[in-house]
């Protein structure tokens, strides 16, 4: 009972027997054994419950309250039907979704194909994040109550799959009259969704979700998320989360908790996916991004030397205490191993090798002419690069220092610089930097998203989310666009194009993969067990409440939990 889990909370034991029956519970006091406490997603007061605002809506808005047509199974690498019973390309530019029957909104209204069509049509509004879908989607149409037909002008198969498991379906009967402003900016209090949970309450530092026992999936999917209540806590910082985890007031922390390896090894009742390095599944790749419009980063030879100069192992061990894994030369996440063309990697890949880096520099004509220990440009001018990471991101700051140190050993002068995050965003967008670290692309259904991130053209005045390196390679971008149009089940077709892209990447090294950031998930077994783990029969999904990750297995994890007490 109570928040501390220790025996000293003032909570009277009276509430306990009441809750164990599971029937009527006092919502003012959640029974510990039926409640899941999570943290690590939301850092401040829950601002809204608007599923269109995928990036800042309250935890669980999408995934627990609103649902998507599909989920994506990262282990099997395929879409799994969710609201949709099935989906298929009826011809090259038409996709048809069959919905599951009998699904109801939480207000009791039936869920129909019209809701789906409406939800996608919302994207026609200019400021809706998936507005660009309508650049290649011609129309969406509910042909009957259970069928939705999408007609495309260009069929971007890869992106479309992404859409299928990313877009929340909202009820037309409630959202119909909403203005663009309301759709984009409304807080959407009292959300009506199809999902398994509804919001019970919120406060500055938490949201509380309550399970809907009449959720459609219970019968249709045979699934039931185990926690009757989920309390997602907004902890302001990681060490607080760690303290709470140790106090057993928290079941799942999706924070980066440095040193957690010690706790996993020690007897603290904490588990992670692996019980040895890297402890976590991988969630995204951290890249070292050179500004390829500036000298000498415009020279692939220099970039390759730079790549060889970074001692990622030292960062992985020293900074992260082995909580992360060094990235493969392609930068593709381990989940995409099958797309890595090993022959390309073995012939053109790179590893940390100071001697080789020096050699590459020398061959390319970068020499230390003035004997200050650092090489100069070919024209003799000094090379003095700055590597920016946001101030306050301590692990990255440490990493940047480490990179600077190892670059120094090969003669490249890199000074770490820690501007304010905002300033960094602005400089990044304008291309006003030498080097930076970035990991904004997450695991998805296809490496396409990574290559789009790497090669997207044309270069704008402001590069806001992709191709921060401002790397221009028409051929590469053509290949990426081609890749988009390969059907997602055509693995061989994808592999072929990806192999070419990998060759370009490794030859030109527009961005340098460093390490895989973890899918931070530390869980306590004091109340809930059967957390995902690499071992035995444990679930293999990710244990995360992060936004957009519930569809990537986070939700399935909840259904696999078991109370520890029983």
């Amino acid at each position, binding site marked *: 009972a109570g928040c501390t889990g220790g025996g000293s909370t003032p909570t009277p034991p009276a509430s306990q027997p009441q809750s164990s029956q599971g029937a009527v519970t006092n919502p003012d006091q959640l029974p510990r054994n039926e409640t899941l406490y999570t943290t690590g997603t939301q850092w401040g007061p829950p601002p809204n419950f608007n599923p269109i605002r995928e990036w800042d809506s309250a935890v669980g808005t999408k995934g627990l309250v609103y649902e998507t047509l599909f989920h994506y199974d990262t282990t099997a690498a395929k879409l799994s039907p969710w609201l949709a019973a099935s989906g298929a390309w009826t011809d090259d530019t038409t996709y048809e979704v069959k919905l599951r029957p009998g699904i109801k909104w939480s207000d009791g209204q039936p869920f129909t194909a019209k809701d789906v069509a409406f939800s996608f049509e919302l994207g026609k509004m200019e400021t809706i994040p998936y507005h660009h879908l309508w650049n290649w989607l011609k129309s969406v149409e509910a042909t009957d109550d259970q069928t939705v037909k999408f007609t495309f002008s260009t069929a971007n198969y890869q992106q479309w799959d992404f859409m299928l498991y990313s877009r929340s379906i909202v009820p037309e009967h409630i959202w119909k009259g909403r203005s663009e402003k309301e759709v984009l900016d409304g807080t959407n209090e009292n959300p009506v969704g199809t999902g398994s949970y509804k919001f019970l309450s919120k406060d500055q530092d938490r949201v509380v979700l309550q399970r809907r026992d009449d959720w459609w999936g219970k019968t249709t999917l045979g699934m039931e998320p185990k926690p009757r209540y989920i309390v997602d806590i907004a902890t302001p910082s990681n*060490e607080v989360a760690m303290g709470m985890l*140790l106090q057993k007031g928290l079941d799942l922390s999706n924070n980066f908790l*440095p040193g957690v390896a010690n*706790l996993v090894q020690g007897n603290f009742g904490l588990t992670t996916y692996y019980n040895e390095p890297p402890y976590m599944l991988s969630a995204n790749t951290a890249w070292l991004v050179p500004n390829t419009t500036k000298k000498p980063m415009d020279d692939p030879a220099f970039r390759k030397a730079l790549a060889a100069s970074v001692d990622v192992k030292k960062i992985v061990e*020293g900074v992260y205490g082995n909580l992360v894994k060094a990235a493969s030369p392609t930068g593709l996440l381990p989940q995409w191993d099958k797309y890595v063309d090993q022959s390309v990697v073995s012939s053109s890949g790179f590893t940390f090798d100071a001697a080789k880096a020096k050699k590459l520099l020398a061959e390319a004509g970068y020499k230390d002419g003035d004997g200050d220990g650092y090489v100069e440009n070919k024209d003799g001018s000094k090379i003095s690069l700055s590597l920016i990471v946001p101030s306050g991101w301590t692990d990255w*700051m440490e990493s940047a220092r480490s990179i600077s140190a190892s670059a120094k050993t090969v003669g490249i002068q890199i000074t770490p610089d*820690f501007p304010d995050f905002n300033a960094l965003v602005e400089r990044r967008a304008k291309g006003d930097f030498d080097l930076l670290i970035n990991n904004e692309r997450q695991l998805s259904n296809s490496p396409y998203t990574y290559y789009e991130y790497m090669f997207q053209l044309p270069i704008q005045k402001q590069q806001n989310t992709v191709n921060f390196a401002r790397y221009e390679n028409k051929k590469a971008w053509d290949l990426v666009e081609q890749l988009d149009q390969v059907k997602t089940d055509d693995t061989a077709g994808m592999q072929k194009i990806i192999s070419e892209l990998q060759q370009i990447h490794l030859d030109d090294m527009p961005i340098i993969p460093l390490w895989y950031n973890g899918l931070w998930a530390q869980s306590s077994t004091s109340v809930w067990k059967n957390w995902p783990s690499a071992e035995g029969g444990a679930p293999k999904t990710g244990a995360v409440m992060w936004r957009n990750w519930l569809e990537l297995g986070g939700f399935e994890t909840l259904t696999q939990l078991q109370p520890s007490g029983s």
Partner: protein
Amino acid sequence: MTTIQEAAPREPAGVRREALYFAVRNGKLMAGFGIVLVLLLLGLFGPLLFAGVPNDYGTRPMSPPSGEHWFGTTTFGQDVFLQFVHGLRSTFVVGVIGGGIAAVIGMFVGFVAGYRGGIVDEVLNMLTNVILVIPTLAVLLIINAYLGIRSVAVQGLFIGLTQWPWAARAIRAQTFSLRTREFVDLARMSGSGTGKIIAKEIAPNMSSYLFMTFILLFGGSVLIASSLDFIGLGPTEGVSLGLMLQNANQWSALQLGMWWWFVPPGAAITAIVGALYVANVGLDEVFNPKLRET
């Protein structure tokens, strides 16, 4: 934080020898300055005596204090003692710069307001009030966040710029009572101008008071700096005790049982500031016979 009493100005000169006599016999003063001195020397000479770069990763991360690493090592294997001695240095730098700037501004405003009186006083008073009422930390937070603090010195500068109001007030009150003394009029009749009178007549009479003000400002700067460091608005270069605290906290030192990383910097700040406060009370006793224990 101790507030300086707005007591009547004292007459230090004649008592100077006597003051020295009491100073060396005042346990508070001696103990306070003793502690500060030891830490100061450690900060000054430590970095020279103990070679090494404080932020360099070592080979044995997370090890408790031992003969090799006196204060143990951090998560990254950095030597805590090495960071500690470097950090001490920055702490003193922040204290001197922050306290110094605040003292200079506070003195200037206080002297001018107290001596000139009238409208000048009112305007300066208003300025003081504005700075006083605006929560210092909030302003520092904003300034720091937007301008960024690179070095300990810049941090000291900003702290100094915001910390002076109470000192100005205290000095103003003292000046107020001194300016009605007749030697001030006599100086005017000897052809001295305002500046000269403040510098040559009023300030020397308050020297002990000014010194104590500086001590308190010094302590205040150290504390503010540590708070700023702690919430991640500290200097991005170098080491300081506050940054050590921040790092220890961020990398969950206590939760992971690495008390040796978290305790020394905080204890050193407490020791420096506390010792200064104690010394300040001692000084007060030395200069003010009424406070001496009878």
